[in-house]
């Protein structure tokens, strides 16, 4: 009888319990609440949160082990079969799909196949504000360096300001994989908080008059020079050329941008590659999302997550977002000083990326100030270019630091 009880006890997780573990459950519940009830990017936050939960049951063997555990001597590593045997399926998934940098480009392929470069092509100039809105990345890099993060960690923290989930995850995998969990959560949470952060920053920096700048009226006053006569051809050539240009200048951005543009190309070609683009946006992307979420969540074991650095990431990520938005807005304001054809600074704010929510939020703000001021299509131009901007920034960081 005693034996039964002792076996029973040893089988349970009670031996490994601690305050930290229970705290992690609480964090998982909060994330689940945000994802399910508040609908903060549920497609990622729910799997991440469940991954956190699974990882934090002592004895469940679902938590990701540190990379040291799989290193052997002489730059060699345990093989995937050994990882699965020793550390279970979650580590198998993590080390085959995530640590190899595989899933973020795969998700980017799907994102590309869902992206329409049309609005950007129709308002090419606005794409430049997608560059300005990357300033948060580098500012926070410097700030967090001063706060005690090392360079690689600081770069991963800064990339949260790119407001793009797969980019943030890919960069962190390459530069500071031990911070993957909190950075992914910060990135997706703040993307979900865009409807709060953009109005907050915009109200700080913009005047009432600026909120009312009407892009369509401007287009009437100063009509664009040439219209696109054959949009389909342009849309097919554009991703190919864009891929070449970015690959020549920032080769390290190829895994991300190349897959994004490949996805876009097979979508724009149309029916003859429809099977491929449907696969990229459907089963491939959804499957990738499930496993990305669960494994990223599973990196957050109590001992890794509960460190002062996590707090730094939460605060730093928010600052990066805010500065990126501010950068976009200020760039438009500077532009407006010199140009006759004014631009609504909200279009700078959407340079952040967080497609398409940022555009929708900016459009709503504009409509609140003037119910005729539809700026969605203009916002989408800088919004999409913000995705490219942060992927390029990620390429630079990886190239200079890894």
């Amino acid at each position, binding site marked *: 009888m005693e034996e039964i009880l002792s076996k029973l006890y040893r089988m349970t997780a009670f031996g490994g319990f601690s305050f930290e573990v229970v705290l992690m459950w609480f964090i998982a519940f909060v994330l689940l609440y945000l994802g399910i009830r508040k609908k903060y990017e549920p497609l990622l936050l729910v799997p991440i949160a469940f991954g956190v939960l699974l990882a934090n049951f002592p004895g469940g063997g679902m938590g990701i082990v540190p990379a040291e555990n799989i290193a052997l001597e002489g730059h060699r590593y345990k093989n995937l079969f050994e990882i699965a045997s020793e550390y279970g399926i979650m580590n198998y998934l993590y080390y085959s799909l995530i640590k190899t940098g595989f899933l973020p480009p795969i998700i980017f392929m799907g994102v590309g196949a869902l992206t329409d470069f049309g609005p950007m092509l129709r308002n090419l100039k606005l794409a430049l504000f997608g560059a300005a809105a*990357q300033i948060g990345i580098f500012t926070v890099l410097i700030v967090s360096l001063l706060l005690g993060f090392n360079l690689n960690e600081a770069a991963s923290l800064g990339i949260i300001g790119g407001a793009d989930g797969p980019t943030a995850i890919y960069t962190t995998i390459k530069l500071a994989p031990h911070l993957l969990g909190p950075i992914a959560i910060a990135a997706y949470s703040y993307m979900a908080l865009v409807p709060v952060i953009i109005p907050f920053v915009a109200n700080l920096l913009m005047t009432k008059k600026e909120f009312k700048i009407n892009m369509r009226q401007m287009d009437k006053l100063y009509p664009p020079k*040439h219209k696109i006569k054959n949009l389909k051809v342009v849309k097919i050539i554009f991703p190919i050329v864009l891929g070449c*240009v970015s690959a020549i200048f920032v080769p390290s951005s190829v895994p991300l941008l190349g897959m994004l543009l490949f996805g876009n190309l097979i979508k724009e070609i149309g029916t003859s590659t429809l099977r491929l683009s449907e696969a990229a946006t459907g089963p491939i992307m959804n499957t990738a999302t499930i496993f990305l979420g669960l494994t990223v969540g599973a990196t957050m074991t109590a001992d890794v997550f509960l460190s002062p650095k996590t707090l730094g990431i939460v605060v730093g990520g928010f600052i990066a977002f805010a500065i990126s938005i501010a950068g976009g807005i200020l760039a438009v304001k500077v532009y407006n000083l010199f140009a006759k054809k004014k631009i609504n600074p909200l279009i700078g704010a959407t340079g952040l990326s967080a497609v398409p929510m940022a555009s929708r939020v900016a459009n709503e703000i504009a409509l609140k100030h003037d119910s005729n001021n539809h700026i969605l299509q203009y916002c989408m131009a800088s919004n999409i270019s913000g995705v490219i901007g942060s992927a390029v920034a990620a390429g630079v960081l990886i190239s*200079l630091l890894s």
Partner: protein
Amino acid sequence: MQPLNEAILIMAVGMITVFFILFLIVLIGDLIIRLSNKYLPEEAVAVKAKKTGTSSDNTMKAIEAAIDVITNGRGKVTNIKKI
């Protein structure tokens, strides 16, 4: 090099690159549009595609309008297959 100096250097390199690439995109996008306007203004295939496009666009709008009325905006057509 001290980390801080390197960070500032990274910032410079990074922002220059980002601006440069997006500037190139503006230029090249513009070039593609001009060239396609000049040499492939409205090719046979494209016209055809466009025409079936416009007609189906109208159909689509009609369908969507109908559904909107009937479902009070709660339903949405995500997929219609033509054969």
